[in-house]
């Protein structure tokens, strides 16, 4: 009844399209075209059908469901060290037939910023595409790299608009965004509602709490890169209770030299430094 056209209502346009056509405007237009959504909806079907409808106790169920999809996502962690940020994730390869390199969870946004994702990968790629464009817009507009907090706010404003305007759904994705700028070293977590927080060490995805607990016990300021990589991988393993799949672990470092992803050999070397799990 409502979903006559199957075209996604929000698309990544060319750069100029991004600046001009806000998602909200597109959504409002579409809603008008389809008539009044509230009247056409069957009554008494609960409060979790429209993302824009509050439940009587003030909750937005669709946003909470989106958070659930993050909770089911792959475990992803990030932590600050003396000169930058380390991001680690376990890509959870389910079959030996899958080529590990084809699964992407870590993305370079600009020379000084990277993100690790958890939740719906396809949703994450849309946000990554947007973050990359926003970073370049800042370079064109002000001849300067985008400050990390500015990019985080822009991304979260975008995510928030999908919790307030009908005809679409929130992003089922959380991002761990690490970066280095003039203000210092940053690690942010963003969730599907558009909320964000800054951490010394953080995690998203399944078993997030185990990883956070590990960091709460062990993280300290001023670590070396090697110590941080080791701690990140140990934290990731603590969420698993088994040894990590060597082919499935990805490690990214963002520091004064920029963004770099460790190659397989380097990751193996780091994993070899971990003390083997008992029994």
């Amino acid at each position: 009844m409502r979903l006559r056209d199957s075209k996604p209502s929000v698309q990544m346009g060319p750069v100029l399209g991004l600046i001009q056509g806000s998602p909200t405007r597109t959504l409002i237009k579409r809603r008008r075209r389809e008539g009044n959504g509230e009247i056409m909806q069957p009554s008494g079907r609960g409060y979790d059908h429209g993302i824009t409808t509050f439940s009587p106790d003030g909750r937005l169920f669709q946003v909470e469901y989106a958070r659930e999809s993050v909770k089911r996502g792959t475990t992803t962690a990030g932590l600050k060290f003396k000169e930058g940020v380390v991001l680690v994730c376990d890509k959870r390869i389910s079959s030996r037939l899958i080529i590990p390199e084809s699964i992407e969870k870590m993305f370079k946004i600009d020379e000084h910023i990277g993100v690790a994702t958890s939740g719906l990968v396809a949703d994450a790629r849309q946000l990554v595409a947007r973050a990359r464009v926003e970073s370049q817009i800042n370079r064109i507009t002000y001849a300067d790299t985008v400050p990390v907090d500015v990019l985080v706010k822009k991304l979260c404003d975008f995510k928030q608009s999908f919790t307030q305007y009908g005809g679409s759904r929130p992003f089922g994705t959380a991002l761990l965004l690490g970066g280095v700028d003039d203000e210092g070293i940053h690690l942010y977590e963003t969730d599907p509602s558009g909320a964000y927080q800054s951490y010394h060490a953080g995690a998203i995805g399944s078993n997030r709490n185990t990883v956070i607990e590990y960091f709460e016990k062990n993280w300290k300021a001023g670590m070396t890169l090697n110590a941080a990589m080791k701690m990140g991988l140990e934290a990731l393993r603590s969420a698993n209770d088994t040894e990590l799949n060597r082919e499935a672990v990805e490690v990214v470092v963002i520091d004064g030299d920029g963004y770099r992803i460790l190659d397989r050999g380097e990751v193996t070397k780091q994993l070899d430094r971990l003390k083997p799990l008992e029994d």
Partner: protein
Amino acid sequence: MEAQDGVLKTGTSTVGITFNGGVVVGADHRATMGHFIANKSVQKLFKIGDNLALTTAGLVGHAQSLSRTLAAEVSLYQLRRGQNMTVKGAATFTANLLSGRPHWVQLLIVGVDADGSHVYSIDSAGGSIPDVYCATGSGSPYMYGVLEDGFSEGMNRADTVRLAARALSASGQRDAASGNGMDLAVITAKDGYVPVEQSEIDSLLKKK
């Protein structure tokens, strides 16, 4: 390219000079229509932020419209990001405005930021060039004579203010489209944008 005589334009002399710890910026007060002096107290020096100033030469309408847009963008940037726009950032932003829709102006964007003090000259099509000092407008050849002679790296505030006043005074004497007094301001990291008192300008010019 020449604007028509019936259009209000600032024949103009404006100048920006970096010194040790800041930048001095100034402009004359005259607006002309052909050989007619249309106004004797035009503002061509604009504060566009705590750390930034703009001087304008060219069509008055274009210059004023740009100064309004720029001041608004600079304060929005500050509010959204909690930090001042860099001088290079402001120059690039302005250059982008001009390359999309050329204005008949020649601008200086001057200021201080974490990297030091800067003067950017910006042309009507969006060309943006940094320098240690720069003069714009019909009076600029006369000012450059004074500047080439008087400028040196690492000057202090007082000497730089005097040099700017002398340059504007020279073009006010010899360029028919410049004169009727001047505005001067000093921007430093510590105090931000501070206008130079008219009495100080008068006494500087007398001493010479």
